[in-house]
């Protein structure tokens, strides 16, 4: 099992970690979730029959793990504040949480966009991260998310629009202030 882990880790780990990190925007949580991904992958590796590429399979599991976390966190928040709806508000991590070091050293525009990623739904966020941060093709993104390619394109368009609307709203608020 160690040999399988070594091979998968060497080939995909940093990409997997980065995908999860940008989804949840919390380094410690990303470390926990990537660990969950490997547990699921290694526990079911013998049943992987190669219907998809190994890479697609790994990222599909990462996506499932991340979504399960979101849903669970959403329900947990709902328990605390019964009116909270993570899919509408999407703010799992508060907007004003300190930026991670990698982002903080970048331009204001990048920092702003990073914060506004939380305004996207998990589907939109997944598509934007896979397409533009991980540089996956539309087909690869579709395979990972189990979307049709047309749904990837629609979700991508909606995600970009959500980002723009949210950023414009904040700029306007800043201007008014």
């Amino acid at each position, binding site marked *: *099992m*160690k040999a399988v*882990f070594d091979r998968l*880790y060497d080939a995909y*780990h*940093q990409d997997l*970690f*980065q995908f999860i*990190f*940008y989804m949840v925007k919390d380094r410690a*949580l990303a*470390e*926990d*979730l*990537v*660990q*969950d991904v*490997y*547990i*699921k992958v*290694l*526990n*079911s590796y013998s*049943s*992987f*029959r190669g*219907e998809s590429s190994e890479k*697609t*399979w790994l990222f*599909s*599991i990462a996506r*499932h*793990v991340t*979504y*399960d*976390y979101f*849903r*669970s966190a959403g329900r947990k928040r709902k*328990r605390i504040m019964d009116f909270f709806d993570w*899919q*509408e508000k999407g703010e799992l991590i508060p907007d004003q949480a300190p930026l*991670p070091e*990698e*982002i903080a050293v*970048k*331009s204001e*525009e*990048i920092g702003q*966009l990073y914060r506004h990623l939380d305004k996207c*739904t998990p589907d939109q966020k997944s598509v*934007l991260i896979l397409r*533009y*941060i991980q540089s996956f093709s539309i087909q690869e993104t579709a395979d990972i998310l*189990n979307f*049709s390619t047309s*749904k990837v394109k629609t979700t991508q*368009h909606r995600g*970009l629009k959500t*980002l*723009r609307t949210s950023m414009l709203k904040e700029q306007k608020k800043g201007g008014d202030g």
Partner: protein
Amino acid sequence: MRDKEKKQIIDTLRSLPQVKDTSNKDDLYQRISLNLHQKKRQPKRQRKLAPVLGTLMAAAILLIIIPVYIGNAPFENSGDQSANQAAEDSAAEFSTNDTAEESSSQTMEAPGAESKASGVQENGESYVIQQSDENKTIMYGAVADRQQQYVIPLAFPVSAGEDLSAYYNQLDAYINAEDWGLSDYMFEDVSFSLDEEKERVTMNIPDDFTIGEGATASYLFEQTLTKMFTPHNIREVAFESENGNGVELGPIGVIPEMPLYENEKESFKLHTTEQGSRSFLVPVPNEEQTTIQEGLEALKLSEASFDVYRTIPEGVDFSAETEGSQLLLHYTGNNGVLDNQETVTMIESILMTAKSYGFETVHFLQFPLEQTGKYNLTEPLPVPEAVNPIRHEG
């Protein structure tokens, strides 16, 4: 959105920095290896049959009632070979295969029950219970798939007025997860006490109970409870431990109770495995803002890596229109549709998907067939009461 604005956002997304995991690889493997095959499959223990009389009666009632619910599906078993094979091989039994304890299975062989129960098999495969009458009720179970990506709901028809808690406390004996190619039932050693008036179920949990490690284990735990109890309008689960010190629920922590919320919108696809003896409809969650049209589109996509398969075949398309609580589905496909198991499975997966989107009836319009299986497609079809009936193999 103007192209220039779009390009600017895309460029900024592409400028986001690479983020590296700086933690140690060997440490990571150490942590992972502690959880690999943590839950070894153990020979299934037969729960003690208490109260014995109630259990014997319940078992007999189950067998007599099931055909009334699901025995009216006269259609041909052709089409999807894997599903048919799964149906033929179905080991969905109301007793375990445990040879050490035969008392439970013996109770299932009540006089006159065997022939009725075996008749169910002859009628082909239905993935739903359409509607029960007022004298019947349904007990719900749920298990995760082998890869623990999805939670599959199960339905056990029982006589109304019986003590549901007694049924629930025997549930592990009815779930043959290993044969079905699924993960173990999570609550094998847990006992339940339902209070439908107070919309509450109390779980008595043994001290060694664990929901597993990892940030997502709690989701499977909650989903399993949700699918088992929200159909009974249960809104809260209270936890009790044997030692009275509270229950450690892994990532959830120690909590005295937990509310249950209705499930989100879902697309019901076909779950079938090579090694499993039967197949199921598995709900795949969708985002809350998705439309029914999007929910139906998802039925055209398989996730073979997770043993999940499309239910709407190539060339079959629908255009959705809403009329109050009725979903109108105009057939717009290019292909003809055959009266076979594949079509029945498609209809049932659409009905269940429509139900999760809040519809009460579905009317198929311009559909190439007037009848398939038990479904008269010229009339609006009510959404089913439950999915994945567990039937006795005669």
